[in-house]
């Protein structure tokens, strides 16, 4: 070791990388648009979304599945994009914060609830909080306050804006249910 200088070590590392990595052609649909790209086996979905496809609304924070800032919907379910290889998502559909509003600019009801209740301070965790809430609406959580708090425990807010986040989540849940109920009436 002592006979090698730093430059030599990093050149060894590079050789090793070339020798042991695989490259894969993948196709993923992000917010309804298909994307074909070549990824290295170790490329993380979070990095592909941010660095290569420009979806910088997805945030990188802890990078270990502990904070929820990178939450996206994968085939409609909320997941941590930092713990997924891009190649694992080949053929999947991803929704990021950029894909929530409708084409004419109308915000998603969760986005509206966060705005109305000022459910953020610095805003860095917000896109993860909002996507996570959207995912939560598709899961069988009950309406009580404790259950809703539990349902959002995968999203940390370092500013501690939880009070307003919680209010926004409660409102999103109830407006979602009202909307579902009225849709059912329309069909009955």
């Amino acid at each position, binding site marked *: 070791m002592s006979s090698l200088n730093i430059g030599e070590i990093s050149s060894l590392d590079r050789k*090793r*990388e070339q020798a*042991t*990595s*695989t490259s*894969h052609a993948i196709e993923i649909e992000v917010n309804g648009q298909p994307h074909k790209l070549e990824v*290295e*086996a*170790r490329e*993380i979905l979070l990095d592909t979304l941010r660095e290569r496809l420009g979806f910088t609304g997805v945030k990188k924070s802890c*990078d*270990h*599945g502990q904070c*929820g800032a990178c*939450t996206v919907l*994968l085939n409609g*379910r*909320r*997941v*941590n994009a930092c*713990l*997924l*290889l891009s*190649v*694992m998502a*080949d053929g999947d559909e991803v929704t990021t914060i950029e894909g929530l509003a409708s084409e004419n600019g109308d915000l998603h009801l969760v986005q509206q609830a966060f705005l109305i209740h000022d459910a953020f301070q610095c805003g860095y965790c917000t896109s993860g909080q909002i996507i*996570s809430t959207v*995912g*939560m609406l598709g*899961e*069988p959580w009950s309406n009580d306050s404790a259950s809703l*708090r*539990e*349902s*959002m*425990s*995968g*999203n940390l807010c370092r500013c501690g804006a939880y009070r307003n986040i919680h209010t926004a989540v409660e409102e999103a849940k109830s407006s979602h249910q009202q909307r579902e109920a009225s849709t059912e009436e329309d069909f009955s």
Partner: protein
Amino acid sequence: MRPFQYQRAAGVREAIAKAEGCQTCSFLAGGTTVIDLVKLDVEKPEMLIDVGRLPMDTILRDEEGGLIIGANVRNSDLAWHSDVQRDYKALSEALLSGASPQLRNRATTAGNLMQRTRCPYFRDNYSPCNKREPGSDCAALAGYNRSHAVLGGSDSCIATHPSDMCVALAAFEATIRVEGPNGSRSIPFADFHLLPGDTPHLEHALEQGELITAVTLPPKRAGTASTYLKSRDRASYEFALASAAVSFGIEEGCIVEPKIALGGVATKPWRCYEAEKNLEGQVASLSVYEKAAEVALAEAEVFECNAFKVPLARNLLARALSEVEGRLARQSEVI
């Protein structure tokens, strides 16, 4: 992150063939453990074999009325499944008390069985750790061992097993079905995870190339109820300091079929056979529960920072037993 190769397996046999004879290959399904540990450089696979899309993702009833849970069933799907919520309540509660909703949407049943410890010395990739680097020593024994095991430890390792799900599976006497190069076999849950002994890097009974395909649960015994209680440093999204999965019934005032397992305090999901024997046939009462809890922790060995775990686990277990009694009373009211 270090480079590695990736292959998506087209079938169970293909996955096994790829892994056979490859010491540095790992199976990959949800990725919530493996990718985390590769990022930390604690795991160094040369190839990840993705089995996450293999059709092992159903929950079925077997002929006897037990449950067959596919290896790829996601933790959230298992937790919310109506049969699990009705007949194996402790399993549903254990799953919902673990990780976060996002992680549970990815994490699989088999992956949860294969979870690695959260011991900070194992994860820091710097301290001596016999589990990560055999023979390098254990930094936890004389270190900050507040989160460590009081049961099942050795001079080599006192890392706790982190899973909640596994504690419930231990109490329900699950069986693990595996496929390997030499065909299929079933492993009783109690034999699946290994005690650290002198070889803490060996954590499970799987042989090279063996793939978990399903976990089976025996039929629920009529008239029993179950619960999972967990104590931790914050109210949600945290590993257990102590947890208990408990199931039993009461017939003519006496306890039948008691099953107890502890989590957060042991080096593997910890089945409490002696405490169960202590409960069997007893007239249900708080003092009987307290006695059983004392028996469950009788062999505990504490270290500098984790002595609090013994009374914590004892009280938690007594409370879990009382909770089941309450559930049984409410069940009989409904009937």
